């Protein structure tokens, strides 16, 4: 792991990552999402333990995004790199921690990658920093530096695939069957999407792809073909589903699997010469024990997080316990609708609230089928009212084409329930 390899893949990743992040931030601003997600809502679904994370006033939020964009420019050009990447990691993670309703697996991925990049010497080559300070310039880095990123990517793919190994996905071809038949206009093969066998085929292919692609990418001879499938897979999912820049993030970061020899072969194919520098005589110093321990802990965390749902009874795809931060990507079709019954024991009044009165469209898309968010919202309804209330909810959720069912015990007064990390008994489980 300490053998020197050329730094080129890391630099390519740094630049691609920075460009993609800049584009993504611009898109976010252009779509008006800073307002929709962080300024408009009167209530935010904060994460457990992160209740103190609150949005700044509007000018502050836009300033955060402006600083983020400046940071991405620093990353792209390798200018004030350490400051840029740390700033990016902190501010990006801050923004994502404000509201569960904006959780996306690829945002978590970006946080993780930017965290890793803080500790890698990505600005040691082809960067403003290296130009201004030749002392930091390096042409070779330990293989470990690049392997860490490959391992991270491999973990993401592997657990995404592993999550697909469930009866709905593999035997029923859902939710893909449901989503595909809503896309029969897809070019060339769209008409096949009405056939159930096509959904099953694509489900199996998707699972196989996720589980095995890190291995194909690691094999030099197969690598170019594997990368073509990476592009095809992600472009296709990008066209079929509403997943924003996720496909491009994956296409870009997967470039880390290409090493300098691949780049040479690529250059030769297009008939221009590229002679990378030779490894220096001096070996880079080996990894300290402390760093090694941190690395091991980091990857233990990366492996435990996607597996933690096994600590909870029932099916995480239904209960959502241990669901987020686990690379469970595009795995379920869930639609829900909540009717909160509010009673004021003091005045005897009784009324209904659906959520649309207080929450934004994005929050209404996510809250109704996530018990933890439903509980949080019930607490909010109680908090904003001067009296103590009794709040129950009738929460119907349809999962992967099944008939809708209640997900929460409709008799439980949610104001008496505290949020907790371990499993709860007021979620109705059916298996």
């Amino acid at each position, binding site marked *: 792991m300490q053998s020197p390899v050329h730094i080129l893949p890391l630099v390519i990743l740094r630049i691609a990552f920075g460009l993609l992040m800049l584009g993504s931030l611009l898109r976010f601003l252009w*779509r008006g*999402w800073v307002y*929709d*997600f962080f300024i408009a809502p009167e209530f935010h679904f904060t994460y457990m333990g992160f209740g103190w994370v609150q949005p700044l006033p509007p000018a502050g939020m836009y300033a955060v995004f402006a600083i983020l964009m400046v940071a991405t420019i620093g990353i792209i050009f390798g200018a004030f790199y350490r400051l840029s990447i740390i700033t990016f990691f902190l501010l990006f993670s801050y923004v994502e921690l404000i509201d569960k309703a*904006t*959780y*996306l*697996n690829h945002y978590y991925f970006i946080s993780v990658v930017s965290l890793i990049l803080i500790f890698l010497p990505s600005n040691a080559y082809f960067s403003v920093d290296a130009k201004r300070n030749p002392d930091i310039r390096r042409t070779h880095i330990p293989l470990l530096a690049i392997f860490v990123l490959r391992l991270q990517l491999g973990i993401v793919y592997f657990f995404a695939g592993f999550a697909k190994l469930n009866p709905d996905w593999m035997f029923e071809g859902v939710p893909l069957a*449901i*989503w595909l*038949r*809503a*896309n*029969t*206009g897809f070019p*060339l*093969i769209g*008409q*096949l999407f*009405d*056939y159930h066998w096509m959904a099953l085929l694509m489900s199996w292919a998707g699972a196989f792809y996720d589980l095995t692609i890190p291995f194909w990418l690691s094999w030099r001879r197969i690598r170019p073909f594997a990368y073509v499938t990476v592009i095809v897979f992600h472009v296709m999912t990008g066209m079929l*589903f*509403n*997943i*924003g*820049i*996720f496909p491009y993030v994956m296409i870009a970061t997967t470039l880390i699997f290409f090493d300098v020899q691949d780049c040479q072969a690529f250059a030769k194919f297009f008939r221009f010469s590229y002679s990378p520098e030779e490894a220096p005589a001096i070996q880079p110093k080996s990894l300290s024990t402390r760093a090694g321990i941190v690395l091991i802990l980091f990857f233990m965390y990366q492996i435990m997080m996607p597996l933690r749902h096994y600590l909870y009874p029932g099916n995480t795809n239904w209960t959502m316990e241990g669901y*987020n931060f686990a690379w*469970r*990507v*595009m795995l379920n*079709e*869930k*639609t*829900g*609708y909540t*009717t909160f019954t*509010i009673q*004021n024991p003091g005045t005897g*009044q*009784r*009324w*209904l*609230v*659906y959520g*649309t*009165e207080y929450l*934004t*469209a*994005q929050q*209404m*898309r*996510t809250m109704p089928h996530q018990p933890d968010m439903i509980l949080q919202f019930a607490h909010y309804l109680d908090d904003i009212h001067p009296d103590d209330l009794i709040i129950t909810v009738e929460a*119907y*959720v*349809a*999962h992967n*084409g099944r*008939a*809708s069912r209640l997900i929460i015990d409709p008799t439980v007064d949610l104001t008496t329930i505290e949020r907790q990390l371990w499993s709860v008994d007021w979620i109705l489980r059916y298996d």
Partner: protein
Amino acid sequence: MRRIRFALFIFAVMLLFTQLSPIQAQDSFDRHAMLENLVDNVILTGYESFIEEAVALETLILQFSENPTEDNLLLVQDAWRETSNAWEEVSMYGIGLRLMSLHNQVDKRPVNVDLINRLLDNAETVDETFVSNIGSTQKGLPAIEYYIFDSEGDNQAVIDNLTANPQLMDFVLALSQYLPTTGEDILRLWSPDGDNFTEEFINADGAGGDAQASINILVNEMFAAFEMILDDRLGDPAGITGEGEANPALVDAPYSQHSLARIEHNLIGLQRLFTGGDGAGFDDYLDFLGAEAEEQMLSSLINDRFDAALESLNTIDEPLQFAIVNQPDAVQLLYDDIRMVYIPIRVDMASQLSILVTFSDADGDG
């Protein structure tokens, strides 16, 4: 390399086959035909019924203006009820800015009487042109309702008011002339002889998931109509939503006391959209997908619940604003029945058809 080329060749042949094969029609649901049926037999037919009633209303108002007797007023009032019933059955089709604008010309509540008075004060001639130039809260069904009904039921007061004030009578007449004109404008937007919105609409048959697709649009209109009923039209007046305090004055049509019937016809229109009338509709689509609810097909569950809600509605034998006070249990029952129609549509059907709820955009990969 040869094997790859061969595999590609086979794949190309398969693709070609799928393009030419006739059997796919049986193995997939014909969404295009469903949309055609919905437009021709549900939407456009509905608008035509509205225009018929609006023309009858215009005729009777003309008759009343020439001979303002109580009998003639009663005829006018009946015609207004029939017209608003017919309108309720198509009010959910305000799709896109232009249709929405035309819909507002027919039924934008509440009517702004102060503004009407100011405009009439400054008006020289009050005719259909005058009406076409004023805003949506000063015309349409709500405006006509205000002048032809008295909230105490005192028809003589209505007659006195209109006969004492000829300009007002002209205004009501002009309003009634403008109504079928708006209806015709709506039809022209859809018609192949006009703007041919029909063709664009029917061809956007890419099923759900795409905000632009017509199926997604129609289902979202269903959602909006139901939520209007559950919040504004029934929930808030009955004190079931809002603050928990009943406020009967909030009903749709307080002067005509016709609010309950309007909700009834809105539900009838929604049910017809769901079933497609005698032709293909969402119920057939759900059946094709094999969508089940507990112990029966989802489509028949939804249909049964529509019927149950309409039955509940018919047990309430007085205007909504009074029933809220006198029969709160029956109103609550009706409310729950309507909610139970909405839930399988909003949850099960939305899920089966991958409907994108179109209030704002965002990415999703959870």
